[in-house]
């Protein structure tokens, strides 16, 4: 049952991604609406599959790479819909859904069995810490997509190449505003995730900070986004520079998420 729901959600996201990519080249209101509708359906099914797994496992399903990727994708779609509701930018899906699909696809090829949670990790911190971390990272992920949109629109305006996509992309001001809002949302979430992580580490392993690769990389990410906010407020690094920084920041997150688990040995590794 859980598997079927997951596969169904994956299929819906796949269809929505295809539509969203076609939308870049030849789109309109109808295709945007269809994409939103399919994504919405996928999101509901995805949510049910996560709840299903939550009940089966007895804790937030986030303790294997399969679960984590899927949950990450879910958080991104959640933020995507929040933005879509607020700003109504149909074309935004084209820059965010592909990532959602890739996350879901990598989730689908990873082992899916529910393994018993090691006693050290059995704590209410699991839900709090990971949820904060994932939501924070998801807002940075969406900020990256918005950053790409900004760079594209910026390029069109500078080069005076004002085609169809230029017309459908929102204004630079809106994109910059969304980017800024997402980072101001993601940054405190990441901060709280690190703090709750430290508290949890103290109660589980006996020390707040152990220079574990995941911790280090999270700290690096935190510094990148702290820098993004800092230079924006002091030196006026908005627009293009903020967009580039938010893309770099997200690359660091991707490394924290995948790279650390695959390449480095970490306490956070899903064993």
């Amino acid at each position: 049952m859980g598997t079927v729901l997951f596969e169904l959600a994956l299929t819906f996201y796949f269809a929505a991604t295809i539509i969203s990519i076609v939308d870049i080249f030849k789109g309109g209101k109808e295709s945007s609406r269809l994409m939103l509708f399919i994504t919405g359906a996928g999101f509901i099914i995805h949510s049910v599959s996560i709840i299903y797994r939550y009940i089966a496992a007895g804790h937030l399903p986030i303790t294997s790479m399969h679960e984590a990727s899927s949950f990450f994708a879910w958080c991104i779609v959640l933020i995507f819909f929040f933005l879509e509701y607020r700003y109504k930018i149909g074309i935004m899906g084209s820059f965010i859904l592909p990532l959602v699909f890739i996350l879901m696809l990598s989730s689908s090829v990873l082992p899916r069995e529910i393994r018993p949670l090691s006693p050290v990790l059995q704590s209410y911190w699991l839900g709090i810490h990971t949820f904060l971390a994932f939501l924070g990272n998801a807002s940075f992920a969406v900020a990256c997509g918005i950053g790409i949109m900004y760079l594209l629109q910026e390029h069109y305006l500078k080069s005076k190449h004002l085609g169809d996509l230029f017309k459908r992309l929102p204004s630079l001001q809106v994109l910059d505003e969304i980017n800024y809002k997402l980072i101001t949302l993601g940054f405190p979430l990441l901060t709280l995730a690190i703090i709750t992580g430290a508290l949890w580490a103290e109660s589980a392993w006996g020390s707040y900070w152990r220079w574990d690769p995941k911790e280090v990389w999270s700290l690096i990410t935190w510094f990148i986004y702290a820098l993004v906010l800092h230079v924006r407020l002091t030196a006026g690094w908005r627009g293009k520079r903020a967009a580039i920084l938010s893309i770099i920041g997200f690359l660091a997150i991707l490394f924290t998420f995948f790279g650390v688990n695959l390449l480095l040995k970490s306490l956070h590794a899903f064993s």
Partner: protein
Amino acid sequence: MKILVIGLNHKTANVEIREKLAFNGPKLEEGIFGLRRIPAVKEVAVLSTCNRVEIFTCANNTASAVDNIKNFLSDFHDMPRNDFEKSLYAHTDSGAIRHIFRVASSLDSMVVGEPQILGQLKDAFDFALSKKTTGVLLNKLMKKAISTAKRVRTETRIAENAVSISFAAVELAKKIFTDLSGKSFMLLGAGEMAELAARHIVNNGVTDVMVANRTYDRGCELAKEFNGKPVKFEDFLNELQRTDIIICSTGAPTYVLFKEQMQKVMKERKHKPVFIIDISVPRNIDPEINKIDNVYLYDVDDLQDVVDTNILERKKEAEKAEKIIDEEVEKFIKWMSSLDSVPTIVALRQKAEEIKNEELEKFKNKFPEIDEEKIKAVEYLATAIINKLVHPPTVALKEDTEDRDELIAMIKKLYGINGDENEE
């Protein structure tokens, strides 16, 4: 009954003729009533704008209606027929319907896709409606013209892109700033085209307006007009720090703003975006400035390119619009022909009743001995027979088939209905 449109527009008539034939102010009411009094003309509405005069009518005999309307125009506007006759066009039937739909959808406009015409058409129709000079046919036609225009607007992107330099400037500004309210704007110099573009920017809600001109008095004048504040030309650089949009047209032979100066300004304003429109020829703003981050510089050629591509785009969209209009014209013609079948059905029934009554009279005269009750029975039989006979053609007439016009003609011929009593 046929729909007939007589009119002229910017393509067929020069402004002199358009002026003279226009129905302005009180002339509109007089004109409508005058036209309505022409015996051949059954319904009237008049659309009169600076680019066109259109007389929408219904008539049975279109040739005489056209002739009478031309005479009326000549009398009414005090102008010999020869002077304007060549500028007039007359469309009937599907041609007329198509013409009205195209006018409403702004496909016939000077600037294809401009939206004002639909409002003008609505007003013209509302006016005729209030004067009760229209009837079933024109009312329906106008409603359909309006809904067709709306369909064209939602299903094509004909009106989406700016096709003048001023509008293109506003459109671009909105792609940088979303909306212009709360933004500050500086007009640098006072060329005519710059003034026009500035007016568009100001009309779009810019709150803070500054005018810097070499002759300070002229600058003050313009500033007053835009509800802004005059700035001495030598001081304009100091104000740039708080300016989001600049339109420049100074007539100076060299650049008045250089890259290094602008770089400094950008630093001062913490790199908040700036949109600069340089309408001057030769250019007054160093083109290198476009390379600075968050500065967007467009010169007059850039804007013209935007306009040219948009015009091309509109032409493509106009083709889609023509298809929509084809569909709507076809629907309307169908509706019109359904009107025709009703009088034929009525006439057919009447004819049958007539025959029945006639034959009953003859029967009574021939057999006077038959009593009232038996006559009733015979009458019942006769009614049943004519009902049975009339039923199939009635059904056929009500059916929506392609060859209904022929069918109507054929039934009229077969049953000897010389309908069209109300036609001349």
